[in-house]
């Protein structure tokens, strides 16, 4: 009886935790048929994806820093994306930028979940920060690519 009770409590907790999981990223694009497709992720869903890590320097840190998270192109894998597509990225404060899809296909751009192996709070520009591998690609070490590293990312529109 007790174990049954415990089971129900566990199921209830799991359901609650599922419904309560907060969406941290919404991606809107289109599927193969051309219909609008919206995919949302909570932080746990992003964590279970393949993680890519690299140490890089950029304009917003003082020293080379380790970032890790899923590749942006992996997040777009279930969408139909043309070679000329543009991604419109939106931050928590509604700041928006656009980046060409070629950035994502040519370079290992990640949506970082962790900085130096620790999750990032909003105060640390988290929870999601788009990071380009600048240290691995010196040609990216320009103001243009630094400005594309939007933090507090919440939304991606494939256009």
């Amino acid at each position, binding site marked *: 009886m007790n174990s049954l009770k415990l089971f129900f409590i566990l199921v209830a907790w799991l359901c609650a935790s599922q419904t309560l999981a907060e969406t941290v990223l919404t991606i809107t694009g289109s599927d193969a048929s051309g219909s609008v497709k919206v995919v949302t992720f909570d932080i746990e869903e992003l964590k279970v994806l393949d993680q890519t890590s690299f140490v890089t320097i950029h*304009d917003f840190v003082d020293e080379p820093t380790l970032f890790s998270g899923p590749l942006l192109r992996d997040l777009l894998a279930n969408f139909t994306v043309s070679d000329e597509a543009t991604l419109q990225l939106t931050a928590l*404060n509604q700041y928006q930028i656009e980046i060409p899809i070629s950035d994502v296909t040519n370079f290992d751009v990640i949506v970082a979940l962790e900085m130096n192996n620790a999750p990032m709070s909003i105060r*640390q520009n988290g929870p999601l920060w788009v990071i380009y591998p600048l240290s691995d690609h010196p040609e990216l070490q320009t*103001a243009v690519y630094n400005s594309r590293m939007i933090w507090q990312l919440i939304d991606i529109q494939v256009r």
Partner: protein
Amino acid sequence: MTARLFQYKWAIISLVVFGLGYAGFSLVGMHREMAGLNMGSLAGGPVWFVTSVEFDVLRLENALYRYSEDRYGADDVHQTFDILWSRLAQLEVGNTHDKLLEYDIDMTVYERSMDVLIAYDDRVTSPDFGVDEAQELFALFDQINGELRMSSLKVLEASIAETNDLRLRALSLAKTALFASLTIAGMSILLLIVFRLDSILTRRILFEKEALLQEAYAADIAKSQFIAVINHELRTPLTSISASLALLKSGSLPQMSGTAGDLIGIAERNCIALKKIVDDLLDIERFASGKMEFDFQEINFSDALIQAIEDSKSYADSYSVEVSVNNIEPDVRVIADLARINQLMANLLSNAIKFSNAGGQVQVSLSTESGRAVMAIKDNGRGIPQKEKTRIFERFHQVDSSDRRERGGTGLGLSVVKEITDAHQAEITVQSQLGEGTTFYISFSIANSC
């Protein structure tokens, strides 16, 4: 005009190379300078950052205001609070921080804003964050707002000054680019002109060459016709005159007076000389047209030479020159056309005799050396100047035009000698000292040495 311009072709090409080099050098320098300009720094620069701080302060104020009116939840306040926190924290690190220091911006207002956030951190994150506290926080930032605006303006001012510098440098680069482009365009036009001139002149030269070739061809035909005329119109009567004179001289006809006999002798000598000239001319023509035929056989070169010396004696006497044998090795055999070898030796001997001084001596020798027969004919005449040595075998060439008057001859003898020597794959060399004499050496392969 074209030709005169073309004289400066290399000067123009040098100018083009220099101009293009200069333009290229300017463009490389410009590229380097452009890379150093970092124009992109203006896009996401500190102005954007400090303005964003102002924007996020306003968002926080807006959230606090709505919270105090119960239109926003605590989460909304908390989020805008954290965003402003992240923005102010970002001012402390990275390039923006460095740039603000470089602009000498007073950071006090940002530090004070951060202090306010730190002071209210616990209260804002507390579930019982009160409306009074929200209004209090709103009022604090409302006071700071003006200072933030002033600070943003200072950053903008510093940025404009920097932008101005960048703009001036960009303008200078644009001028360089314009100058380089004009230089390249100018040089290309010059190059085009040079190539055009080159093409015109090349065509003209080709045309002239063709005309010259046609003239030469016409001249060649005329020469051949002339030779044919000589052969038929001059040689035939000469042979007839020569034969008649020989008959007269042989005495088979009634005896003539001494004076008439002398005159016939003179006529015969001149006839022989004229026949020799005609024969040389015909031979040269045959050599030139490749129609000369040779009958190569093994001959006794020593005997042929001795015979040639004998034959030349009467001619030598007429010049009061002695032809002496100076060691002729016996029975030296070579593969040769005897008639042509006789002609070669006769020409060389008559030349040596003709150009020797009266009472002089022509020495002839024949020796063998390393499988070759070397014939040497040495005179003690006036010698050949160094610069003429290479030209003496040319047709009609004589060392000094006065020679022709003094010694006679057409300048064909040595040319015939050279042609015969070449046909026999023999070698002819000449050594000469002005005022001392000349020696011709001709070397043949020995027949039995093969």
